[in-house]
C-alpha cells in the first residue's frame, strides 16, 4: 500500500499531466452528503456531510473546490477538495437546484427551482450579481464552450431559454417536450441537447437558428414508453457520441451524434439521472436514485464495470482530475 502510494506519488511528480488519479463526487439528496470515490480503484474514500438536500454540483475552474447546491439551505456550499471541508457559502437565491460555472470560472449560474429565476453568482466576491427571470421550475443549466450562451430549461413551462451571457438576458425560447431537465452543449457550441423527462425525448437545438433540428426518441423492447425518462446528457470531447440517462428505464442510451441513431442501451441501476466522464474519457459514472448506487461504465467496451453503493437518493455526479 505504502509502496504503491509512493510509486504513484513519484509518477505524479515525474509526469503531473499524465496522472491517472481522479475522483468522483456524488451528492445524495436524502442523506445530505457528498460521497468521495476513488475513480480508479472505485472505492469510497470518504463521505462528507453537507447542508440539507444537496443536488446539483459543479467543480471550480481550478478543480480545487466543489460548488454544492444545498437546496433546502437556500445557498451554495463551497467544499474544499483538499481538506474536504465546507469553507464558505455563496448566495444563490431560494431553492438552488442545478448550477453551471461560466467559462471564465468567475460566475456561477444557478437555477432556483422555487422562484422561476436563474441567479448569477460571483464566486470571487461571493455575491449575487443579478437574477434572470425564466419559466416555471427552472432546472437544466448548460453553458456553451465558446462562452456565449447559457441555456436554462424550465420544467413546467417546457422551454429551453437561451440567455445571452454577455447581457444576462433571455433572447430566445424554444418549446420542447414535457418536463425538460438537462441542457448540454456539443463541444463545438453549435448544438444544445435538451432532455424531456416526461415527454421521453431529447431535442437537438441548433444554436445559430434556435430551432429544433431533431427530436430523438427512445425505444427499448418490452419496456413501456412511459418508463423511458431522459434526464442526464453527456457528450464526448470529440463530439461523436452522446450518452443519455433514461431514469426509471435503468438504461443509458448511447447516441451517434451524426445520425442521431441510438447505438446501444446500457443497463445500469434504477432511476439513473446524472452522468459524468472520467478526465481521460475512459469511464463514465452514473447516479442511480432508486438503487442508491453509482454505475461505472467502461467507455471502450461500453459495458458496466462496477456498481458502487453511495448515499440515499444519489443525485449529481462530477469527476475531478
Amino acid at each position, binding site marked *: 500500500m505504502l509502496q504503491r502510494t509512493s510509486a504513484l506519488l513519484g509518477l505524479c511528480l515525474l509526469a503531473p499531466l499524465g496522472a491517472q488519479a481522479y475522483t468522483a463526487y456524488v451528492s445524495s439528496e436524502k442523506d445530505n452528503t457528498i460521497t468521495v470515490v476513488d475513480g480508479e480503484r472505485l472505492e469510497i474514500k470518504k463521505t462528507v456531510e453537507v447542508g440539507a438536500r444537496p443536488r446539483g454540483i459543479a467543480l471550480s475552474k481550478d478543480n480545487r473546490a466543489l460548488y454544492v447546491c444545498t437546496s433546502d439551505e437556500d445557498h451554495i456550499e463551497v467544499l474544499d477538495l483538499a481538506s474536504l471541508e465546507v469553507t464558505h457559502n455563496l448566495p444563490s437565491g431560494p431553492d438552488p437546484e442545478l448550477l453551471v460555472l461560466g467559462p471564465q470560472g468567475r460566475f456561477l449560474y444557478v437555477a432556483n427551482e*422555487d422562484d422561476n429565476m436563474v441567479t448569477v453568482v460571483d464566486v470571487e466576491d461571493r455575491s449575487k450579481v443579478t437574477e*434572470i*427571470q425564466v419559466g416555471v421550475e427552472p432546472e437544466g443549466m448548460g453553458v456553451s464552450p465558446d462562452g456565449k450562451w447559457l441555456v436554462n430549461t424550465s420544467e413546467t*413551462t417546457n422551454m429551453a431559454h437561451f440567455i445571452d451571457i454577455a447581457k444576462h438576458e433571455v*433572447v*430566445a425560447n424554444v418549446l420542447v417536450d*414535457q418536463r425538460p431537465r438537462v441542457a448540454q452543449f456539443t463541444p463545438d457550441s453549435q448544438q444544445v441537447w435538451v432532455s424531456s423527462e*416526461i415527454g421521453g425525448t431529447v431535442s437537438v437545438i441548433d444554436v445559430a437558428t434556435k430551432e429544433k433540428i431533431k427530436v430523438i426518441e427512445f425505444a427499448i423492447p418490452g419496456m413501456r414508453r412511459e418508463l423511458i425518462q431522459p434526464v442526464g446528457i453527456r457528450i464526448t470531447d470529440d463530439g461523436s457520441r452522446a450518452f443519455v440517462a433514461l431514469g426509471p428505464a435503468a438504461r443509458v442510451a448511447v447516441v451517434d451524434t451524426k445520425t442521431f441513431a441510438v447505438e446501444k442501451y446500457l443497463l445500469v441501476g434504477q432511476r439513473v439521472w446524472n452522468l459524468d466522464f472520467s478526465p481521460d474519457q475512459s469511464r463514465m459514472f452514473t447516479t442511480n436514485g432508486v438503487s442508491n448506487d453509482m454505475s461505472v461504465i467502461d467507455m471502450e467496451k461500453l459495458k458496466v464495470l462496477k456498481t458502487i453503493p453511495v448515499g440515499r437518493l444519489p443525485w449529481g455526479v462530477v469527476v475531478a482530475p
Partner: protein
Amino acid sequence: MPAVKPSPRGAVAPLPTLVLATLLSLSALASTSWAETLEVRIGLISREPQEYIPLSSLEIPIENDGLEGAMQGVRDNNTTGRFTGQAFSISPVALEGDDASGALRKLHAEGLRLFLVSLPAEALLALADLPEARDSLIFNIGAPDDPLRTQDCRANVLHTAPSRAMLADALAQYLAWKRWQKWFLVVGPHPGDQAYAAALKRAAKRFGAKIVEEKAWTFEAGASRTDSGHFNEQQLANSFTQVDDYDILVVADEADEFGEYLNYRTYRPRPIGGTQGLIPAAWSGVMEQWGATQFQRRFRDETGRLMTPLDYAAWLAVRSIGEAATRTQSADAQVLRDYILSPDFELAAFKGVPLSFRDWNGQVRQPILLSEPRVLVSVSPQQGFLHQFSVLDTLGYDRGETQCGRD
C-alpha cells in the same frame, strides 16, 4: 444592463411592460410574431360552499377549494405566457343559488368560452346543453359520476376530475397485488355513497376480488365529540362489524360522516380502505414524488394550506388550456379542444408519466394515488396490469365499455 424584475407572486396577470419587453426580444419561439398579447380568459363556476366542519380538529377548514388550484395554474401559465405572448386570467363565480346557467350566460356575454365547472352532474349537463355552451369548452373539475363518462357524454365537456370507477379500480388493483381479495363493503346513506359502492363492486369484479359481506351504515356517528363519546363509537362499530371473515373493510362514505369511526374499531383486526383509511385520490398533501415537492411548496407558500384533489383537478384543467394554447398559439375553444384530444397532447403533472385525454369521453388519463393520512402508500396502475394502448386505461371505463364517442 436592464434588470428584468420578477413579477410579484400571486399576480394573476403579468405586468404588461414585462410582456412587451420580452416580446421585443423574442425571435425563436415560433414563426408567429405577436402584435399584442393574446388573452386567454377562463371562467370558474362553483357553488358557494356550505358551512362545513371537518371531522377532525386536526383539519383546517378549506377555503377556496378548487379556485386556489386554478389560480396556481394561471400563475404557471402566465410565467410561460411571458415568453409566448399569452396572458391567462380566471373569473370565478361562486353561486349562492342554483342559477348556474345565468352565470355561464353572463361570462359568455363577456366573451369567455373556457369554463371550469365544479357542480353536481345534473347541473353540469344543464350547462353543457345551453346554446351558449355550443362554442365553449367546459372542464368538469368536480363531478366524479360515472354516467358522465359512459352515457351522458358531451362533446364540449372534458373531465379532469377522476371518475369513481377510476378511484375504485386504483384501490382494487392495489388490493389485488396485496391479495386482499375478500372485501367487507359498508355503504353510507347518500346517493354518492351508493354510486361509490357501485364503482367498488364493478372494480371487485374486474380485478378478482369478492364482496363477501355488504352492510348499510344507518347510524349517527360523531359522538366522539362529547365527553366519553368514544366509548359509544367503540361499541357501535364493534358490534356492527361482527361478520364472517374478510381481508379488508371497504367503505363508501363520501360525506366523511362515519367511515373514520370504523378504523381500529372493527370486530376483527382488519384494515380499512375506500373513502377513509387507505384512500384512492387524484392528489394528496402527502405526495412528494416526481417533482411534486416543488409544486406542493409553491402552492403552500401561496395559500397557507395543502392542495386538495379538487384544486389539482382545477390546476390540471388550467394547465391543459395553457399547454394547448402554447402549442397551438390559439385561445379558440374548438382549436384547444381538438388539440387536447389529439395524440400530440401531453401534460406533465407531477405523476411521473404524461397525462392525456381519452378521446372517446374526454376523461383525463392519470395515475391515482393511494394514501393514508400521513404518507403515500402506492400509486395505481399497479405493475402487471397491462393494456394494449395505455396502462392508464386500466383505470375507469375503457373505450369499449362506454356509449360515448360512437356518434
